[in-house]
């Protein structure tokens, strides 16, 4: 890995961004009026007006980075963080208000697939429309036509009007055309999220083939994709860089931290049992979130009150990762469990030893069921929240302990 990095470092810088800023206006009428003023000052070539005018804000503020051939930069951040604005400047669609972008080589943008498609026309005709907009010549399209149709897997429907295509088919056709670009710099904005699994795998394969001789800038909300292809990462928040570097896992963690809600809510309750208290037993805390070291014990404390309830109960805890994917199910209590379910107030601990979850945030749901029939009594979402600490930052949810030894 480190060898790869040093090799890459020798390659030429294709994208250089210095002190880039862009302002936008909150109000439409004012925005249009500023547009008129900008038109006049643009034609006159004046370079002042660096200050914010009334009702304006910085959509992107003081961004700096460099990207070399063979590197992939992930741009992440919540909605409105300035990712798309930054991409538009890099793509040359809008001018920056301050700073400078220097891009070397052919730029290809996967921002919208199938640009220039006309719904009335057939897929074949639209390959030419889309290809022309992406900068291909007629000859190039002629020679690549069969390849494009095969890649899109649309041999049968290529002469059908595009308006009768399913959205997946349209995206496939659009990507098939765009995949023929041989850019030096590639800008990708959230377009791969559509389409089925097979299509996505195909997209990744294409990206993997172009990556070694291309600098890619990738915007996505899908952290698995970001961690899959990016070697550099920038986390944006309200136009500013919060994190920049090559520790993709750390940036993703910071990104998720923004969405953590420290609140539990009851999603099902039939009134027979009430959750009085739920805590994670831990000595360490980070911003009031319990901190558990990797490979140590995860210990829950629970306190319930029961009302006219005769039946035996089982308690099921499910762990969710930061993407809200269920990743683990704690084995429930049975007749051998040393807890007394007969009392009105039920109070007990649940322990899981040698926790091997990877570094990051996890939330836990609690469900209480009738023992035999699994009839639900109570379900609480996000009853616990905890953080696992470890020096290794990885994207998968588990870091499993290993022993290595000679044969």
């Amino acid at each position: 890995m480190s060898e790869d990095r040093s090799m890459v470092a020798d390659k030429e810088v294709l994208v250089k961004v210095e002190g880039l800023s862009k302002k936008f206006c909150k109000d439409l009428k004012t925005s249009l009026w500023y547009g008129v003023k900008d038109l006049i000052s643009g034609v006159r070539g004046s370079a002042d007006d660096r200050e914010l005018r009334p009702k304006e804000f910085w959509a992107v503020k003081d961004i700096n980075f460099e990207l070399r051939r063979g590197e992939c930069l992930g741009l992440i951040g919540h909605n409105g963080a300035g990712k798309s604005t930054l991409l538009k400047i890099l793509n040359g669609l809008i001018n920056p208000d301050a700073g400078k972008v220097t891009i070397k080589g052919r730029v290809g943008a996967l921002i919208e697939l199938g640009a220039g498609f006309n719904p009335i026309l057939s897929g074949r005709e639209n390959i030419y429309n889309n290809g022309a907009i992406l900068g291909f010549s007629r000859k190039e399209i002629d020679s690549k036509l069969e390849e494009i149709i095969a890649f899109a897997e649309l041999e049968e429907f290529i002469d059908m009007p595009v308006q009768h295509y399913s959205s997946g088919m349209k995206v496939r056709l659009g990507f098939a055309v765009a995949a023929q670009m041989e850019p030096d710099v590639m800008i990708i904005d959230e377009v791969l999220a559509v389409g089925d699994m097979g299509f996505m795998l195909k997209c990744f394969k294409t990206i993997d083939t172009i990556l070694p001789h291309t600098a890619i800038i990738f915007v996505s909300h899908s952290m698995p994709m970001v961690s899959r292809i990016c070697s550099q990462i920038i986390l944006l928040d309200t136009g500013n860089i919060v994190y920049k570097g090559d520790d993709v896992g750390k940036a993703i963690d910071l990104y998720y931290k923004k969405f953590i809600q420290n609140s539990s809510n009851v999603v099902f309750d039939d009134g027979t049992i009430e959750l009085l208290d739920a805590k994670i037993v831990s000595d360490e805390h980070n911003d009031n979130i319990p901190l558990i070291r990797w490979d140590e014990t995860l210990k829950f404390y629970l306190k319930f009150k029961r009302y006219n309830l005769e039946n035996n109960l089982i308690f099921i805890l499910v762990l969710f990762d930061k993407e809200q994917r269920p990743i683990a199910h704690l084995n429930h209590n049975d007749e051998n469990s040393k807890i007394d379910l007969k009392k009105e107030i039920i109070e007990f601990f649940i322990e899981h030893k040698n926790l091997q979850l990877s570094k990051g945030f996890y939330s836990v749901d609690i469900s209480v069921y009738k023992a035999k029939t699994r009839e639900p009594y109570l379900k609480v979402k996000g009853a616990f929240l905890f953080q696992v600490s470890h020096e290794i930052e990885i994207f998968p949810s588990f870091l499993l302990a290993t022993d290595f030894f000679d044969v």
Partner: protein
Amino acid sequence: MPLETRVYQKERTIKFGALLKASLGDMYASRFLARQLAERDIKAQYRQSYLGILWAFMTPLATAAVWIILNSSGTVRISDTGVPYPVYAFTGTLIWSIIVASINSPMQSTQAAKGILTKINFPKEALLLSGVYKLLFDSSVKILLLVLFVFFYGVGFHWSLLLFPVAMLGAIMFGTTVGLFLTPMGLLYKDIGKIITFGMQFLMYVTPVVYAIPETGVMKTIMTWNPITPIILTARDLVVGFQPAFLNYFLIVLIVCVPLLFLGLIIYRISIPIIVERLSA
């Protein structure tokens, strides 16, 4: 192989020569894109219609028909024009419709491409060129109809008819130049488009479209100075085989149009990023 380097920044010196060269270069380089876009729009327009190409004639035919009826029924008395009135009215409304379409063309082409303008970087000049291609297509269809008119009303063939396309090109160039200057503002404010539609209706009555320039009076002065007058009159004179009376003024208008057209192209090139920003903000 040295890579092409692009720099995007606010500070830049406006060199008109370099901008014009870049603009014309992009226009030449994007001729395939422009043709493809024009072909796409024309095909799509006619594929979903039975009357198809007939719609291109409708406006000039309808306007001409109204005036032919007004004239023949005696509702409006029109001074003698020297040629059969239907031919007079139709050549006028036809060339007028080409000018109006040319004025609207740059704005409409750019407006229609709003969706891709905010997402993909391509030579924007292709939009203007595709607009011109579409105008040429529509206009040449209209010429065919005009030729039918000429023979049907017994005006007969004159060699000067072969020069009519030159007048038509002049009309397109004049219209595109005017349209180009209105485009940046027109993309920001919808009012501009409305003003054009509205204003052109009135402008038609101070241009010898359906009646000749009066002998005296204030209308005579306005109509003589109106820069559209020489275009309409020269085109018509070429069709009916008269000596073009306004030929000099026609040539002056065209010569003045050339630098203005270039200036319009430069302004267009500078203003597109500013407008894209406001469209997508």
